[in-house]
């Protein structure tokens, strides 16, 4: 290595603290705008991919964005519901495969997604263990949900009450975990999948009665008088559907009127898709038809605009950082005048001393660049997962 480069390197190594601060500053200056762009573009690509794979979405009239966020990403909003008879209407058209969704409830922080078995093949979800749900009251957990709740096949999860003070007396539903899915890196990992009718049970549209007249329930009985049984607080605080009591579960009212969040439509070909869109374009009959990819692209345009402003702001910050770094260098050179004089007296030329300073700058910049690149690579690989683990959905 040329002497100047070596001396430059040794100077930086000796002044570790100063060098580290300089490198860190420049690294951040390089990393932040790049990371912003990578994060936004990767997020957009991932979101768009999922939206692209969802051809059409039906829901209640209202915000298309909220409908898409809730149905594709299980966003914790509560869009208006449609009734189940709409699903029957759609199926009668025979223009697509129709997959209902009801995403109103949660099990702790994990969204409960009421749907049908077709959803699993539609999203390419595969089992890591156990089986798919076989009956009401069973559930299948995404890999992330299972890890978060610390359950495996055969364990149980409980639906969360909507409010703390649920005076309606709709108890949480204890659901058996029939299976756990393989991780997909998608929103499905965080979900608890159930039969859509199970969500109606959770909502209280269907239930079973704990028979307090049976001997086994004696502990829950406060008193009996003239055929009236008064229960105490020890009566089971959750409902659970089992093979033994399934016969006691029943729905009240017509299932046609039961709620759904949305219906995913998967037409087999373009012609069917066109016919379907033509039939529901005017959004009559209380149904809204959206193309998730279009809705998302509109939103992402806004995101990219915001991103540009963020990057602009970061660039200005970067310029200020560069100014400070230049100042630091200049001050540093001032302090080193004696050293440069010594070098000059021994025989170093001005070019040599210039090269010495330049080598320090080069090392700092190259080091920062390498570090920034490494961070971007790591971020591209893991950032979304790390953020997901910290920012629970």
């Amino acid at each position, binding site marked *: 290595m040329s002497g100047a480069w070596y001396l430059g390197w040794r100077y930086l190594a000796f002044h570790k603290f100063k060098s580290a601060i300089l490198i860190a500053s420049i690294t951040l200056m390089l990393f932040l705008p790049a990371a912003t762009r990578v994060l936004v573009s990767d*997020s957009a690509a991932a979101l768009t991919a*999922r939206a692209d794979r969802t051809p059409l979405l039906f829901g209640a009239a209202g915000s298309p964005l909220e409908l898409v*966020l809730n149905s594709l990403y299980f966003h914790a909003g509560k869009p208006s519901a449609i009734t189940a008879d709409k699903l029957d209407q759609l199926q009668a058209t025979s223009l697509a495969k129709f997959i209902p969704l009801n995403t109103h409830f949660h099990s702790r922080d994990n969204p409960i997604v009421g749907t*049908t078995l077709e959803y699993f093949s539609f999203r390419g979800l595969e089992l890591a263990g156990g089986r798919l749900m076989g009956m009401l009251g069973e559930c299948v957990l995404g890999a992330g949900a299972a890890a978060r709740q610390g359950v495996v096949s055969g364990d149980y999860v409980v639906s969360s009450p909507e409010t703390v003070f649920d005076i309606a007396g709709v108890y949480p539903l204890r659901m058996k975990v029939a299976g756990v899915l393989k991780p997909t*890196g998608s929103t499905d990992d965080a979900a608890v999948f159930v*039969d859509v009718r199970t969500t109606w049970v959770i909502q209280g549209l269907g239930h079973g009665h704990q028979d307090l007249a049976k001997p086994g329930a004696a502990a829950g009985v406060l008193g009996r008088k003239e055929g009236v049984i008064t229960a105490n607080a020890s009566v089971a605080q959750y409902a659970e559907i089992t093979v033994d009591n399934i016969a006691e579960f029943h729905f009240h009212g017509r299932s046609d009127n039961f709620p759904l969040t949305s219906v995913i439509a998967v037409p087999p070909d373009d012609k069917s898709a066109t016919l379907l869109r033509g039939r529901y374009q005017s959004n009559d009959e209380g149904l809204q038809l959206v193309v998730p990819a279009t809705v998302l692209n509109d939103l992402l345009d806004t995101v990219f605009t*915001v991103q540009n402003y963020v990057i602009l702001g970061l660039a200005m910050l970067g310029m200020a950082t560069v100014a400070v770094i230049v100042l630091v260098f200049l001050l540093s050179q001032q302090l080193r005048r004696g050293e440069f004089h010594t070098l000059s007296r021994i025989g170093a030329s001005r070019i040599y001393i210039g090269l010495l300073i330049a080598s320090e700058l080069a090392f700092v910049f190259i080091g920062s660049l390498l570090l920034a690149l490494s961070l971007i690579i790591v971020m591209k690989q893991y950032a979304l*997962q790390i953020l*997901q683990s910290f*920012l629970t959905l």
Partner: protein
Amino acid sequence: MSRLLSMLFSLFLAACGEMEDTQSGNTGTEDRVANRPLVVTSNYPLFFFASQIAGDAKQAPRIVLPSIGGDPASWVPTADQIGLLQSADLVLLNGAGYESWLDWITLDEGRLTNTTAGTTSQLIELKELPTHQHGPAGEHAHLGTAFTTWLDPRLAMEQAGAVAVALERLVPDQADSFRDKLSGLQSRLTELDRELADTFAALNGQPILFSHPVYQYLQRRYDLNGVSLHWEPDAEPGISAWIELQKILQQHPAAIMLWEEVPLASTSARLADMGVRSIVFRTASNRPGHGDYFDVMGGNADRL
């Protein structure tokens, strides 16, 4: 603006869960089609029809009737049986409310075929709601739609046709074979219809009794003058039941009562004392101990 920011943030969080989406697709069905698709039926008549139509060629679909104790109408599938239903490429349903377990079992709707879906106009609505008690089993009520559709050979033919269509969709390559076999089956059903018509014609409209309300389609097809009770073959009728029977006989002097199975000797003896002969007319809803659907129905005709 804050709402937009909230949505953007939510979108960002959602994207945190979206690294990549796999799109492996489900090739299970395609694999199974290549290796004899699995067809599960919900009762014996459908099993019989499907078996007849599918045939026993090497690549013919496998027709399975789960092991069900008692009347399949009361079937509560076990976890393994649910697994069998879920793994089937095709599930043939009787429809008309026969499969109450559909209300709580999770199945892929695309693989279900309701064999009476095309005959809903011919289904018999049950309008009365009598409550009654069967010994220790507790009260229950019949309502909705009568579901023993296969007791009417004409409806049975429709169901067989629906089975054939479903099998053709499942294995298009064997469509010709299915149609041929369907034709043969329908010929035999036509023959059975004629035989039963002749048999019931001999009754000449005389009043009969049905021990249980499961003969609605038989009654309608052959214009039988019948009244349904709610007696079980293996249960001793209570005093109120006998009193009710006497009242009915005053208005409806039947000399025959059809039973799904052989009734208790004491019951048939007492009925005989009252001038009512017990005749077994099996519904063939479950797999017979011996013979097939036509043997069972033929035996019914013979006993009449």
